[in-house]
């Protein structure tokens, strides 16, 4: 049985929830470790860490459309600038029931595209001049559908939640290790001397390693959202071949978007970072070959090919 986009959407949504729950659990583990090691001081730092993480991430989430536009140098275009592209986007709007997003172009010869904005009303989808030049109509439609799928799935929100949690964990760990360096905190206020050395060592290891675990979880969430966007794109166009061919074009292309700012790496359709420089576990995107294989398998599904 060939996989259907409905099944794949469901599976990826479930995995996202599982991973987000994993992050929540990680926060609990860190707090527990902090309590074991530092007693009440450990808990005292929690609201500060969470507060800073929320403040820093949600500001950029709220103005994500403007922020990302500035960081990538994207420029808003009008329908008269590229009527064909607007036709494609209007088609996907009809297929998805989404509102027409703002459309932007990034002057860059490397083929790539991204979507951002906190909700449907503030959504922006952007394309590099490279991708507009190199792809045919079906391929570009697949790319448009993938970006619109990010909007439909509220991926700016999902990644903001993941970033907040990962950020809070990183700050918490940072604070606690600092307190440790200055020798402060530990059991000064509560004199329960039931500390066994193993529990202390384990707590210490947890506090130090938690940020890495959080980054791994955050990357895993990003990868699931990419796979979900591919499945949702197929739900919109019912044409897995278009997106598959588009990804093959990206795969055969060696140029990489010039800006290598890791801060916005996760929003592009293809990761702008060299695959060699980032280990698979830390990658924000599933490997292109894996995404292509999944789409190819969907092409065998009898549901495909009759958009009528």
């Amino acid at each position, binding site marked *: 049985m060939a996989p259907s986009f409905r099944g794949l959407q469901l599976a990826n949504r479930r995995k996202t929830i599982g991973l987000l729950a994993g992050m929540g659990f990680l926060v609990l583990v860190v707090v527990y470790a902090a309590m074991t090691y530092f007693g009440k001081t450990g808990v005292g730092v929690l609201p500060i860490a969470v507060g800073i993480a929320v403040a820093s991430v949600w500001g950029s989430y709220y103005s994500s459309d403007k922020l990302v536009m500035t960081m990538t140098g994207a420029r808003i275009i009008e329908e008269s600038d590229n*009527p*064909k592209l607007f*036709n*494609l986007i*209007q*088609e*996907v709007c*009809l*297929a*998805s*029931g989404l509102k027409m997003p703002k459309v932007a172009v990034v002057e860059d010869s490397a083929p790539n595209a991204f979507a951002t904005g906190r909700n449907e009303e503030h959504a922006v989808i952007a394309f590099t001049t490279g991708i507009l030049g190199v792809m045919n*109509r079906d391929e570009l439609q697949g790319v448009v559908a993938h970006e619109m799928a990010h909007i439909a799935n509220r991926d700016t929100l999902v990644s903001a939640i993941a970033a907040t949690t990962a950020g809070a964990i990183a700050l918490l760990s940072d604070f606690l290790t600092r307190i440790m360096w200055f020798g402060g905190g530990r059991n000064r206020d509560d004199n329960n001397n039931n500390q066994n050395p193993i529990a202390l060592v384990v707590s210490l290891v947890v506090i130090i390693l938690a940020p890495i675990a959080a980054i791994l979880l955050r990357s895993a969430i990003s990868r699931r959202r990419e796979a979900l966007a591919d499945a949702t794109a197929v739900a*919109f166009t*019912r044409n897995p071949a278009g997106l598959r061919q588009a990804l093959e074009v990206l795969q055969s292309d060696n140029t990489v978007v010039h800006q290598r700012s890791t801060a916005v790496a996760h929003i592009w359709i293809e990761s702008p970072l060299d695959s060699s420089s980032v280990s698979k576990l830390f990658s924000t995107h599933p490997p292109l070959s894996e995404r292509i294989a999944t789409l190819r398998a969907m092409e*065998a599904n009898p549901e495909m090919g*009759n*958009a*009528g």
Partner: protein
Amino acid sequence: MGTTWIIIALVVLFVLFAIMTYNKLIRLNVSVDEAFAQIEVQLKRRSDLIPNLVETVKGYAAHEKTTLENVVAARAKATTASGVADVAAADGAVTQALRGLLAVVENYPDLKASSNFLALQEELGTTENKVSFARQFYNDNVRSLNQAVKTFPSNLFAGLAKVGAREFYVVDDPADRQAPTVKF
């Protein structure tokens, strides 16, 4: 004392659930209406393109009378159609007639290369896609509504919300009825 509170809590939960389900059914029903309106918008767009297309083709292939008349007749019929089944049938006829016309165009290289026709081509292509996506979106919405109307427990509230299963938008397309292609 304890049991009274439990009963009150259960009643409150039930009422909340009923309100949510009722609203969901109404929402799904409204989405189907909106999706159908969107099909009509796109059909109208296509209908508006046809006179221009017919004029352009006439300039190069005036003697392809039957094909041209088919398109004009199908378009005229489609403007009076109402109701899902009628609109779908008229839509199918226009799609069919247009396909015939575009097949004829293939025999006229001058026409195909003319600036008028080239300008129309992208417009026709995207319009056909838009019509087709609007149909798909409508059918997706009908699918969700019908699922809610027919499955437990939302089916219990369908009568109360005066919402019933809706009709799918089926375009009878002879191209689909051809011999099934065998793939290995």
